[in-house]
């Protein structure tokens, strides 16, 4: 497999509760600052679970390429497009393209791969006034429809708006996908983009993932299902008792090694592989034993012909849900055996951004490989019994060993597990 095209990360962007760009989020991780706070965009004062990872100081007009776009899209799209803009700017692919005599091939070989949350409950609320007015009378609903609901409603809620507007804004016309698969959509978009470059479908791909996990009707259900914590998101900690939902987006520019070299691009890290698989069980199930995840981790390392000794660190899903944390710890422990690879996770800082979370982890992991510093889990007090063998740190640590690879784990509804592996660039 070594003759295949290598795939490099050459641009990154993100927005979340812990910062409005990668640098701010990185600094927050190193300083141990969390962006999780009481939900402020709505009055939920009587709710027992009121914490969330909301974007601070949300100013959508400043986050978009043009102000008028605001009327055509939803809040989740603003986040995705903003992250994509940052990554594209960071990669400097546009000045390179603009220097080309003919941009046709460049645009047709530039893809856009997106992890989308699909539709949110709150997008349907534009119909509530009409429903209140017509009180379950369907004929009246139909007759009043055109007077009560915005004619562009469907376009505002398209689950592929970020894909479409990233293409339209920059003129990219290549291969594309829009993965809608709960919390693993972003990581699966990353894997498909990697394969699209390897197979020659694209020379470079803008990968974006976004979500508004703080959708309140969804939060209501997560809480009833027992998935949320009322007090904290403490991955692998003795007191972990659920996750905290959040909104955010992340984006990467991936490029073939040839494309990156041709324009002398700065590279953060190399994407080397990974797999997406289901455990084959229920929509909300997680296998307590971690057997399927163990097999997936082994499959991932074997495909790269690497061993736990080659891993500089693992970025765990670490969502603070006891069942998820413990099964993940089982899997890591079985695969690493006595090696004790440094394990970290980032959700304590910005909350669980669901579909965006895997790609956000990927951006931060690339930053760790590039800067040779691994952030810790700041709010870890004492690991849960089953997580004691994990090599967890609370403070940032220098990555000064010989190991060059990173392994990332991402999990979601549908009993989905996704892995991605990365490698530090030689000159880093």
């Amino acid at each position, binding site marked *: 497999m070594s003759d295949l095209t290598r795939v490099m990360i050459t641009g990154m962007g993100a927005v979340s509760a812990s910062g409005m760009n990668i640098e701010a989020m990185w600094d927050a991780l190193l300083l141990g600052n969390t962006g999780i706070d009481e939900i402020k965009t709505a009055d939920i004062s009587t709710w027992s679970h009121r914490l969330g990872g909301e974007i601070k100081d949300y100013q959508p007009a400043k986050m978009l390429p043009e102000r008028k776009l605001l009327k055509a899209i939803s809040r989740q799209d603003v986040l995705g497009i903003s992250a994509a803009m940052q990554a594209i700017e960071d990669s400097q692919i546009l000045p390179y393209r603009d220097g080309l005599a003919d941009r046709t091939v460049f645009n047709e070989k530039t893809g856009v791969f997106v992890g989308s949350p699909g539709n949110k409950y709150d997008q349907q609320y534009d119909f509530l006034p009409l429903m209140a007015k017509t009180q379950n009378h369907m004929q009246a609903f139909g007759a009043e429809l055109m007077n009560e609901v915005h004619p562009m409603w469907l376009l505002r809620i398209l689950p592929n708006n970020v894909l479409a507007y990233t293409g339209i804004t920059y003129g990219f016309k290549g291969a594309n996908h829009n993965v809608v698969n709960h919390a693993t959509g972003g990581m699966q978009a990353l894997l498909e983009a990697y394969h699209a470059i390897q197979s020659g479908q694209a020379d470079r791909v803008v990968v974006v993932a976004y979500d508004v996990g703080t959708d309140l009707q969804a939060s209501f259900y997560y809480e009833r299902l027992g998935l949320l914590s009322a007090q904290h998101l403490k991955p692998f900690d003795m007191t972990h008792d659920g996750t905290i939902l959040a909104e955010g987006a992340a984006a990467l520019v991936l490029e073939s090694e040839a494309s990156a070299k041709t324009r002398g691009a700065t590279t953060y890290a190399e994407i080397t592989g990974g797999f997406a698989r289901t455990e084959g069980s229920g*929509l909300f199930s997680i296998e307590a034993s971690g057997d399927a995840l163990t097999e997936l981790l082994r499959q991932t390392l074997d495909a790269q012909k690497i061993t736990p000794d080659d891993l500089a660190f693992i970025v765990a899903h670490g969502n603070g849900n006891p069942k998820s944390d413990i099964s993940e710890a089982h899997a890591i422990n079985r695969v690493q055996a006595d090696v004790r690879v440094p394990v970290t996770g980032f959700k304590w800082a910005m909350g669980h951004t669901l579909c965006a979370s895997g790609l956000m982890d990927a951006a931060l992991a690339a930053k760790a490989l590039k800067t040779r510093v691994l952030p810790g889990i700041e709010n870890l007090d004492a690991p849960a019994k089953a997580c004691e063998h994990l090599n967890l740190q609370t403070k940032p640590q220098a990555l000064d060993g010989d190991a060059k690879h990173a392994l990332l784990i991402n999990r979601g509804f*549908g009993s989905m597990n996704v892995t991605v592996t990365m490698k530090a660039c030689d000159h880093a």
Partner: protein
Amino acid sequence: MKQRRVAITGIGVVSPLGHDARSTWQGLMARKSGMQKIQQFDASGFPVRFAAEVKNYTPRAVRSGKHHRFTMPFTQFALDAATEALHDAGIHPKTVADNARFGLVAGSGMMTGDFDHLTRFQQAAAFEGAVDWNILQQQGDAFYRLNDFGRTASNSGLSLLIQEFGITGYANSVHTACASGGQALGLAMHVIRRGEADYMLAGGFDSMINPLGVSSFCLLGALSSYNETPETASRPFDGSRNGFVLGEGSAFLVLELWEKAKARGAKIYAELAGEGNTLSSYRITDSHPGGDGANQAIQGALADAGVQPSDVDYINAHGTSTKMNDLSETNAIKAVFGERAYKLPVSSTKSQTGHLIAAAGAIEAAISVLAIQHATVPMTKNQTTPDPACDLDYVAEGPREKSLGVVLSNSFGFGGTNSCLLFKHPEFERGRV
């Protein structure tokens, strides 16, 4: 490097023309229309009051298992179409030697919302039209139903298929509006090609025939308004076309590594030999009038499969019956095929099935494969008024017998995604069928 080839060994369909692949094909051949007055809810007050519904539907089999509490009518279509495809192929994820080598890709609908659910939400927490979250919490015990959440999760349909068929390998669901089904199949082909799976169940499912879905397209003015004559309302490429007709249903194909299919003596319907996947990057709803974006998708599929434009025998068009799509698609075909475009049969089966949205690319892939199998080109119904700008051979007179070596299927979505799939007759060789 020798590329791994992908065989199509199973087909399953639930459509407005029939509840399986055979009856859907027979409906196409009998020139039937799937359109009629909407039965599923009272649409009498809506600007558009007809659609292409799956009629008299009862699930194929009584199914057991806890996961079925999260089934919606349109995910039930998916279960039935996928069951038929697996049965037709004679393989099953639970019985292949290595279960992990059997994957799944679904092109799924956007409207996972359920109108009854939204109605109960409105009654509970937004009686006057504005949501009061504290009231929702007060009424929480009465309002809460796990099934509501399970049925409306973004990957609810995918999860249902995973559990029903015991998938433990690759699983993915994609949504690019009306291109979803085509993209799902293209992605599944790539998963086999790159060696991550030997078998893939791939297709799409959708229904937007509910008050929110019909509203959304009425608001945009995208639907045909021929309320008095539903059966002739979908008239792709015709001069009097004025919008598409909303359909519903599901189609799945079983894709299989060529050598595996050969080795077990499976019936190979066709080879899925190429995919073109592009973005128009033009506008959200409109396609480029000159066919830009679509034409690169068609060229991409030809190049991917290593065939020439002159090898193509039939195009199953996206052909929605909207003013802009049909013009744009016609121009894209002219751009790729030049003079040959006028001799190439191009038909839109949406004239009979309606537009299955996220499932459109999947059912049209199934129809393209059946066309190869039956050596017959389906027609485009309802051609009465020529459009001077749409002047190709749209197979207006009725189904046409023709031996087919290479067939293309186009799917173009809101948002500008273009998917073109290329199917080869199993015995196709360059230059002869």
